[in-house]
């Protein structure tokens, strides 16, 4: 520092701060999440539309031998809701550079995400029929299977961002990757909410 100059004078001569980083990954993930959601939601729309037509015709929608039990669907919903909370916890911790909590939250989120998959598998087993038994079964297997695939992508995204955080690439000042993974995960949970309500609750 030159003799006699103040801090303000020194900083006044410094180059301007870099403009805020464009949120490329976040916006791209949001667009991709919307597209992925449309895949599952459009099939739910097919399911509910067909169900409405059948019921309007005075017939029963689900065949006698097909059972959609509440417990697996409810467990799946609760598991995913808990995972949404832990993902929010991970993002919050990362933003505050609380790395220990961030690792813990990422780990828990992945664990809960993985735990959701057996609930779906259990639901399939409890249905008591195969995919070829009826159109309704085919639709339910396809919709829930697609959501499992969507969850798998979300888990991979969370794992990559978790490892990047572990490697020090994501910090409180540059946590965009975590935000992007979180957005995808929230959309995944929201889409399951629709699937759960459309198939498990209202059947």
């Amino acid at each position, binding site marked *: 520092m030159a003799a006699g100059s103040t801090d303000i004078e020194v900083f006044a001569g410094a180059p301007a701060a870099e403009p805020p980083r464009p949120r*490329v990954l976040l*916006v*791209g993930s949001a667009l*991709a999440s919307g597209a992925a959601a449309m*895949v599952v939601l459009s099939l739910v729309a097919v399911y509910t539309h*067909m169900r409405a*037509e059948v019921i309007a015709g005075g017939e029963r929608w689900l065949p006698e031998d097909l059972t959609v039990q509440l417990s697996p669907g409810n467990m799946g919903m609760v598991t995913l809701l808990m995972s949404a909370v832990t993902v929010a916890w991970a993002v919050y911790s990362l933003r505050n550079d609380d790395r220990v909590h961030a690792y813990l939250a990422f780990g828990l989120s992945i664990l809960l995400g993985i735990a959701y998959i057996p609930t779906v598998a259990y639901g399939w087993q409890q249905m008591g029929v195969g995919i070829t038994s009826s159109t309704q079964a*085919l639709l339910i297997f396809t919709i829930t299977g697609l959501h499992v695939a969507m969850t798998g992508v979300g888990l991979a995204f969370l794992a990559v961002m978790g490892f990047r955080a572990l490697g020090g690439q994501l910090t409180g000042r540059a946590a965009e990757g975590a935000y992007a993974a979180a957005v995808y995960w929230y959309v995944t949970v929201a889409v399951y909410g629709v699937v759960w309500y459309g198939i498990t609750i209202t059947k």
Partner: protein
Amino acid sequence: MTVTEAPRDVVDAPAGPAPSAPPTGLAAVVGSGDPRTIGRLFIGTSLLFLLMAGVLAILVGFERVDLSGFEVLDSDIVRQLFTLQSIAAVFLGVLPLLIGLATAVVPLQVGASTVAFPRASAAAYWTFLASGGVLLAAYALDGGPFGGDAEAVSLFVAAFIALLVALAVATVSVVTTVLTLRAPGMSLRRTPLFSWSIVVGGTVWLLTLPVLAAVLLLVYVDLQYGQQFLGGSDGVYDRIAWVFWQPTLYVVAVPALGIIADIVPVFARRRHHRHAVAMGLVGLFGALSFGAWAQIGFSVDGQSNPTDWLYDGVWIAVGFLAIVPVVGLLGLWAATLAGGRVRMGTPLILALFAGLLIGGGVAAGAVTVIEEVDVVTTTWASGQELLVVAGALVAAAAGLAFWAPKIYGKLLPDGPVRLGGTLLTLGAGVAALAYGVAGLYDQPRAIAASLDGVSEVDTVETLNLVAAVGLVVAVVGGLAIVAALAAPARRRTVADDPWGGHTLEWTTTSPPPVGNFAALPEVTSEAPLYDARYAAASAGPAERTEATA
């Protein structure tokens, strides 16, 4: 301190092999993440697919000349070709062509150094190429809709899904580029209209393509597990046909409107008349083109195909409302041209042709929704599809002629492009008109459908002949444009701004350097270069130099 931490200026040349030279030839193409290279690949490949689609349309067209039977090809093959021509035209042709153009041009327009996800764009292109090839191979193996080989039909469906994923990924990349990588000062309001139309059209694609992919996935699962639901390969086309109907059909025209809107003011040598209104109209047209709700419904028994939206209030309203933005834009372009000093360059001529074709397609769509006319299942709808697709294609040709200095580093030869665009417009227009009139005589759209209701068979056959000849003319026009693209440059160098452009892409060299821009001018409006030129023209000699610089 270790040796490796010594200051750079006291360290000799690094040990080990010298850094390898950048790849050239095929390696440079295959491994490239450069948006212009990827854009050129998309454009070149889609043009080849489009020519193939054109030839298929000609074959199908000549099959219709004699309605008593199938003369040229076997009836099953004709049904498959009928489906392939539409699928190839839209999903292997026009959509990837527009995506390629956007991948190459949008980063330049918004002042970005590259697209948002260059590797994803590259992966999307190679997936598009591979899935497009597999899709055609599946058809060759008797797959595709109405195919006889169950495994080949499943292969077709899987390839189609992969194709949709590729197009969606490439779309995410360009839309994200516009949303996040705009130059300082370029608000969304100041975004060039082509880039804006990509945001609008791309968003609608991202809402529509996944719906089609989901339906195809259902078809795939059904094909794999008993075919109890959708009727096997015969039911496949019913599931995807909605994409070729209004309103979804209009989705290919959204970026086309943006291309026209960027070309018109440059050749009128004035600002776009009411730029903000034009943005709103493009947005409205995009919103109206979301039509995933208007598809053939599913039934549990797989027998009935409910279409309860047909002649429903919403469908009718969308059919009529779609005219509003297109007519509004045509009016704005007329006002822009009327107030300017018009230079009739080839891009402008093709842009005007494209505007007329799209306008005709939308007007035909308004007639389609009138229940009393009852043409929705006739070749009237084929004519409408032809007008909209050809309109998008001619607009893309206009865009290629306009942005060729930036994409290819050369100006396209004027004569072949102008001739090609004119033939394409005339041929498609004549064919669409002939199909439209034949539709009024109740000629069914589906080629193998019953002809019981067709009145005036001789007249319809004559109209079909006219349509087939029109398609031949259109394909010849397309060939002329492809030849112009492939022709070597006449001059070694091309001016950085040969047209007197208004937007940022014209501030950089032709072709642009790596990173696109050495420096960007300040963006204070939707036409920063026009502003700079106007300031230079209105300033005194001393200021003029500064403004020009």
